[in-house]
């Protein structure tokens, strides 16, 4: 119980400290807060690993009156991934500020916003109450929008506002679904809802909530806000926005469909979700292929990579001879969430380093940079391997698990999406790679300290390690996994 409270309150306390402390102590406070929260996340994970899911009833009130929190395998896996990405972003932001000297607005605002975002993410990961999840989502959106607009440039403010409009629309749709659910059942706890007596309005409620969450997850065709927003933010903030923020709404979607209302799934709805995911993979990939700026390529790649996760909805439950335990697609999708988080954060942080070195992220300006910044180039290549889903990375584990389910469930069309998406990723990531590794000598790039370069390298190595050491995270994800993930929707 204590570790969970620590996980939720430490980032909030640190956020307050970064506002209240004198200017010189702020970055240090953020660093200490990040370290402490990272430890708390690992602590929760260890406890869950040893003793199973951990429950916490706020104020001792039981649902439906009170709000229940639960840390299961999926929550803690996301919690640890988030903690790693957050810590890396905090480190990268410190190094970036030391090198480039940001304006006073960024230097002041970025710490509390990052930490607030972290607290809200942790809250969403463990919350079991639909309204509490709404509040968590809103907090995430608000801090994320502020991070997008933090530079104060007109373009960034416009991107932030566009993001805010989508986010608010999504929140209101979700809220409408929550209101309908409450008026029909008088309860909002996920476990209680699983045992409810279904009523006709459930379909509408689930549909509204799903639509809202899709807008927040930037699933095709609701993705238009994501690339400009992610590209406009400072690099460490982009890393968080791309790697973590969409995962919160995605997690709620998974919890809704697999835990709260699995009975509402119909063949048509699953096909729609999977089909939108497939379209996202293709469309995001194609758009990433034509971008001229590294950050936009990486941002469109997020649209594509999130699409894979949606294939788990139609694929869940396919059991074959290679995979008799059958929660393959679900676990694979969760692996995709984790490995994409690590790899995408690493990629945005490398983009930040390139921008610090040459002042631009246009592909033409990045030519030959791998020679001056070999560690960063290597980090980019490693995370690219994960995003392409090549072995031995975490992305490969995800793809393998989902593809096995696709063949076992006799739904081979989805396997084609997985294969094609991987090749498309190879194509759009090849362009920045080729630019970085070309023989041109860049015009005197600014020196970037090695410890800053090491940050994305560590994240990329973790993404690959997730595949090399996939047995442990695999088992962790099975703790408290909904049975329906194995049976299929």
């Amino acid at each position: 119980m204590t570790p969970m409270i620590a996980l939720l309150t430490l980032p909030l306390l640190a956020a307050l400290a970064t506002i209240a402390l004198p200017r010189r102590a702020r970055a240090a406070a953020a660093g200490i807060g990040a370290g402490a929260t990272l430890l708390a996340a690992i602590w929760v994970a260890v406890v869950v690993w040893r003793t199973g899911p951990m429950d916490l009833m706020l104020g001792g009130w039981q649902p439906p009156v009170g709000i229940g929190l639960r840390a299961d395998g999926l929550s803690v896996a996301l919690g640890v991934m988030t903690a790693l990405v957050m810590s890396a972003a905090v480190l990268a932001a410190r190094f970036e500020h030391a090198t480039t000297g940001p304006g006073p607005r960024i230097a002041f605002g970025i710490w509390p916003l990052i930490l607030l975002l972290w607290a809200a993410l942790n809250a969403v990961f463990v919350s079991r109450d639909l309204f509490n999840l709404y509040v968590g989502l809103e907090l995430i959106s608000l801090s994320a929008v502020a991070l997008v607009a933090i530079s104060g440039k007109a373009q960034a403010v416009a991107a932030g506002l566009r993001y805010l409009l989508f986010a608010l629309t999504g929140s209101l749709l979700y809220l409408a679904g929550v209101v309908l659910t409450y008026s029909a059942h008088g309860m909002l706890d996920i476990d209680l809802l699983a045992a409810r007596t279904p009523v006709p309005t459930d379909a509408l409620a689930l549909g509204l909530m799903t639509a809202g969450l899709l807008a927040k997850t930037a699933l095709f065709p609701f993705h238009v806000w994501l690339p400009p927003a992610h590209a406009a933010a400072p690099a460490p903030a982009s890393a968080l926005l791309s790697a973590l923020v969409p995962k919160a709404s995605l997690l709620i979607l998974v919890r809704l469909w697999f835990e709260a209302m699995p009975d509402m799934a119909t063949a048509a709805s699953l096909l729609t979700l999977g089909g939108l995911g497939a379209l996202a993979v293709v469309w995001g990939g194609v758009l990433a292929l034509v971008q001229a700026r590294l950050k936009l390529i990486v941002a469109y790649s997020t649209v594509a990579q999130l699409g894979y996760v949606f294939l788990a909805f139609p694929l869940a439950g396919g059991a074959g001879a290679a995979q008799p335990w059958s929660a393959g697609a679900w676990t694979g999708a969760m692996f995709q969430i984790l490995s994409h988080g690590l790899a995408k954060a690493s990629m945005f942080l490398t983009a930040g380093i390139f921008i610090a070195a040459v002042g631009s992220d246009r592909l033409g300006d990045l030519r030959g940079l791998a020679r001056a910044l070999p560690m960063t180039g290597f980090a980019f290549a490693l995370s690219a391997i994960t995003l392409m889903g090549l072995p031995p990375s975490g992305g490969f584990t995800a793809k393998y698990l989902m593809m096995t389910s696709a063949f076992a469930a006799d739904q081979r069309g989805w396997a084609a999406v997985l294969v094609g998406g991987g090749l498309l990723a190879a194509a759009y990531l090849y362009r920045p790679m080729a630019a970085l590794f070309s023989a041109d000598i860049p015009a005197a790039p600014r020196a970037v300290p090695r410890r800053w370069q090491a940050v994305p390298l560590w994240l990329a190595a973790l993404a690959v390690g997730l595949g090399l050491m996939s047995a442990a995270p695999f088992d962790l994800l099975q703790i408290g996994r909904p049975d329906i993930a194995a049976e299929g929707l």
Partner: protein
Amino acid sequence: MSLSIFALTGAALVGIGIYGLLAQAHLLRRVIAFNLIGSGLFLFLGAAGSRGIGIDPIPQALIITGIVVALSASALAVTLVVALARATGRATLPDEETPR
């Protein structure tokens, strides 16, 4: 009787809000439209909460929380609108999809 008035008013507010969201390009109007939709939903929730026997306190707690959230969202939105207006002289979104 009075309950369905609340529910209907809520629905009407949501409708007006959606219209405003779709029809108005001015960002301040859109922010107001969001607030209308939110208020409509809360009204609906309140109405739903007082069905049945006695009064269910939970919706009231939810509504109060929701109002706080909506207020902070509006504050952020208005700040951004002002910042955009200062930077570009207009309070509407530029229409290009992606900055190149």
